[in-house]
Every structure is written in C-alpha cells, then in structure tokens.
C-alpha cells in the first residue's frame, strides 16, 4: 500500500475512535443488541426446555440472533435497521467537513494522490466497522455460551462470521452513499438529511411502493401470479436492504431453502432438511455480489466527482 494512504487511514481511524459521534452510534447499537439478545436468550431457554429435539439440530446460537420474544425486536432487526445509520453517520461529512474546516486544501497540497483522500475515508471506516461487528458478534456468542452451557458448532460459528462480515459490507454501501453526498452537497446538514431520506425510503417505503406498482393478484391463474411474484422480487432486489435481509435470512435460518417463489414441481419431493453451509453460501452469492457492486458503483461516482471538484468553495 502507498505510504501516504497508510498515513491517512491511520489518521481517519484515530478520528473515528476519538469522535463522540462514532462512540454514541456504537453504544446505541451495542445496547440495543444486548437487550435483544437477552430477551431472545430467555425465550429460547423456555422453548428448549419444553422441546425434545436434540440440541444440535436447533441452531441455538443462530437463534440468539434471530429470535424475538415479541416484546423487543430481534438482534438482526435492530442491526439491520441501525447499520445504515452507522454508515451514514460516519461518512456524511467526510469531504464537505474537510472543505469547511479548510483542511482539505492543506492536505492535497502535500505530495499525495487526491484519490488517497477518499479511499482512506472509505477503508478506515469499513475497517473500524468490521472490527466492531466481529467484536460484537463474538461477545454475543460468548454470552450465549455462558447462558446455554454448550459451545456453538463449527458451522454455526462460520455462519455467524459470514453474517457479521455481510453486515459490515451492508454498512459499506451506506458509507459509500454518505461519502458521495458529502462530496455532492456543500453543507454537512444537507448531506445528512439526503442520506437519511434515502435510508428511510428503502427501510420504510420501498416495499410499499413495489406492492402498489406490482400488486400480486392471488386470485389469478398460477402462472400469472408466479410471474408477478418474480417481477416483484426483482424490483425489491434493487434495494440494498432487501439484498441484506436475504443474506441474513439464508445464513441464520438454514431451514429457509429458497429466496424466491417456488413452483409446485420444485417443492414436491424436496426433503425438508436445513441447507448446508456451502449451499447457503451458494444461495447468497448473487446478493453479496450485488452489495459489493452497489458500493463500488457509488464509490466510483464519488471518485469521479471528487477528482473534478474545484478545491475551493
């Protein structure tokens, strides 16, 4: 790696770690996660004591992340909701903040490439986020071990790690969006609002809009319904939120065998066993690629804008 890029990444990481904003966001996620884990743990223990299936088949450790007792949303619901906020919160003033504080011009008057400036912002934030989610995940697993008194299986650990990395990637998409808006908008307040608007759009309204645009007519002939459902799903998959949810469902609920509508022919004769880890990975591969593509696409636009931007405003 280039020396100057390394220096800038180090500076950015230090900035995040010392910033109030970042620590508040982390605390928010940490506390909500903890609360949901606790209630999930209680609910699972109750359920397990009544059931007679062998413990290993239950994917206990995965359930810790997905189960809700009805009073508090599950870990994945919380994280899925707050992760974009984390990405936006870390990036919305990445560039316009530096312009307004008049540090950008001093930075690029040094013998460094301009791209190193935004690259370092993106890499540093993603590194910090990845470390945070891995730490959070392992902390939760540790708690679960204490709680249940048994260790997770290797498969569960692998599924959880991939889930955590995918979450970091999902935050990465929102980071890219935040950086893009921080270049496009002069005022940090504007870029923050614009980012939040996009987030709320995908989190709350997008599904609704798709439902209105492509209503599924359940009374109609099977072929047409099937077709409608497919279009429906394609449209939903434009949203990073849908892609992430599909990844999470597949990884943490191995009993879900397919992400799309199935025909009767596909279902008949299928044995209702959980998917293996390999099969799950195969199933989410396109979604992961989609999330990566989305981040890269947004970053590429940021990059072009930034390279052409006049440094003075």
């Amino acid at each position: 790696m280039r020396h100057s890029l390394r220096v800038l990444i180090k500076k950015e990481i230090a900035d995040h770690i010392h910033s109030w904003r970042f620590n508040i966001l982390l605390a928010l996620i940490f506390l909500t996660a903890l609360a949901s884990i606790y209630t999930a743990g209680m609910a699972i223990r109750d359920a397990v004591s009544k059931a007679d299936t062998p413990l290993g088949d239950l994917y206990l450790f995965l359930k810790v992340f997905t189960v809700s007792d009805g009073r508090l949303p599950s870990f994945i619901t919380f994280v899925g909701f707050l992760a974009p906020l984390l990405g936006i919160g870390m990036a919305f003033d990445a560039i316009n903040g530096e312009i307004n504080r008049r540090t950008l011009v001093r930075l690029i008057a040094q013998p460094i490439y301009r791209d190193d400036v935004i690259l370092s912002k993106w890499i540093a934030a993603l590194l910090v986020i990845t470390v945070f989610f891995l730490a959070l995940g392992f902390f939760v697993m540790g708690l679960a071990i204490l709680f249940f008194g048994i260790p997770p299986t290797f498969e569960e650990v692998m599924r959880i790690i991939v889930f955590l990395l995918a979450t970091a990637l999902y935050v990465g998409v929102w980071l890219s969006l935040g950086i893009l808006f921080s270049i496009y908008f002069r005022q940090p307040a504007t870029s923050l609002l614009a980012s939040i608007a996009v987030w709320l759009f995908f989190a709350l309204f997008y599904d609704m809009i798709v439902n209105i645009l492509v209503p599924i007519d359940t009374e109609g002939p099977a072929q047409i319904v099937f077709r409608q459902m497919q279009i429906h799903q394609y449209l939903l998959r434009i949203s990073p939120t849908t892609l992430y949810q599909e990844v999470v469902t597949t990884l943490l609920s191995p009993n879900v065998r397919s992400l799309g509508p199935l025909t009767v022919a596909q279902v008949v004769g299928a044995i209702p066993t959980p998917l293996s880890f390999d099969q799950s990975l195969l199933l989410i591969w396109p979604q992961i690629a989609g999330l990566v593509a989305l981040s890269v696409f947004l970053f590429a636009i940021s990059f072009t804008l930034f390279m052409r931007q006049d440094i003075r405003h």
Partner: protein
Amino acid sequence: MADVVIELKGLTKIYGTQPAVDHLDLEIKRGEVFGLLGPNGAGKTTTILMILGLVEPTEGEVKVLGINSTREPLKVKKWVGYLPEDVGFYEDMTGLENLKLTAALNGMEEKEAVKAAEELLEKVGLGEAKDKKVGAYSRGMRQRLGLADALIKKPQIVILDEPTLGLDPEGMKEFLELIKNLSREGGMTVLLSSHHLHQVQEICDRVGIFVKGKLIAKGTVSELAKELFSTELYTFEVAVNPMEDDLISKLMSVEGVKKVEKEEKAFIVHAEKDVSAEVAKTVVKEGYNLVRLMPKSYGLDDIYHRYFEGVQ
C-alpha cells in the same frame, strides 16, 4: 547564479466566460521574496493554485523547478510549501500532531518528523503551545502554525497566500519579520500574495501588481516608482495659509510647473524641474504664509493607486 524557480508562460484560467487569470507571464528567481499584490478577486489565489497543480490552467504553462505543475503535481508539491489563505487545522489534534501528520504525508520518519516539528514550532514561537489542541489557538497562532506547516517538508519554495490577513498590526509585523528571516537563513524562495501594500513592501525584493487577472507592472518598488512617475519626476507638497484657489493660477505661471492640484491640506505641484525656490518666492510674494514645502516621494501605495486609476 540567479536561476528561475517559478516560470509562468501565458498562464490563463477562465471560469465560465470570465478570465480569473489572463495570459500571465512571470519568472521568479531562486532566493528572492516576491510579492503578488492586488485587490480581492484579482486572481492571486487562482494563480497560486495553478502553480501548485491544484487547479488546471485553461491555457498556458507553469513550471516549478523545471517541472510542469499540471502534469506532475506530486513532484512539485514535494518541493513547495504552501500556506493557504484562511488556513485550517484538525482542531482536536495538537499543533505538534498536525505538523507530524503533514510530515508523515511527505514521507518523513516519525523520529525525524518530531524533531523537525519541534524545531519549527520553537522558531515560530509556538514552543509552549505545541501540545495544546489547535481548537484553543488564536488566529495569530494558527497563522504561525500554518507557516511551520508550510516549512516542515523542507521546501525550496514557500508560497504564502494572504499571510497577514486577520492579524493585528503588531502580529503582522512580527510575522513578516519571521518570513524574512526564514528566507534569508534558508535561502528559500518566497512567493507571497497580499492586498495590503504597506507591510509587504518592506520584505519583498520584487513585487508584481496584479489587477483583474493581469500583471500590470513588476519590479522592485523603486523601479516601479521610476517607471510610473518618470514623466513628472519633481513633485512637491506645498502647504500654505490660507488655502485659497487663487494661488493655483499664480503657481501655474511659475516656469516649469505642469500641474497643480488642491488637496485637503496642501497643493500638489508637478513640475519638469526643481522649482522649489521659485514656488516659495511666489507664495510669499502673493502674501501667503508658507507652512511647508517638501518634495514628495512615492511608496507602493501611490504606485498601486496610480495603477488602479489606469485600469478603472
């Protein structure tokens, strides 16, 4: 040898349809302190940014130490220290940490960087404040930190954009003194821009007067004065009592006098030769009291105003 370290050829930058810098030709020699003077919006900052390779010229060429700034900005930025207009720092880092970051971006090792930073902070008078967060610095302290920041890469050339802006007169004088000493000691070439004339005229070896994107005059201060006022080499300030307009025609009739202007407290007499004796005689003969009669010398301010008159 007085080799050229900054060379601008036909340098032009057009924003929209308006040229901010208009076919600028300029050569700056090694070791000199050059002042780029001009009112706000003249195009000084734009010129500086083009020299650093941070803004692309619409036309023309910039060479710094023989390197084309537009094509190889990294090489140029290695040798040029820059204090931007209205400099900003990372407020929650200390002065020392800010300098260390700049040093690291210039490829300095940590140890070397700390040593260089501490020396410079001492030199600019921030030795005591080096471990304070920049957020707590005053305007003058920031400006001095900015100078240290421009110097930490051990540049051959330093470019200071409006370095005296926002400083009080005392601070300004101190700051300029600092720049002058640094250029003398280090043999550095200094290019500074300003719209304040008085202060910078003392430390500049040469100045260029820049108005609406055009360099309308350049040279040493005395060269400029000579060039501009050569047609009226003799000018006198004549204060009399009472100041009456009648005297103007009387003074005009003195042989050699070309023009008489009335100012608030004195008449300004422009002449072809030394007419002081005749002027004095005329004043007394007409029954006025001669309060003061002295030859007028030109400073940068007069020069500057003269050029403005020509342009506007």
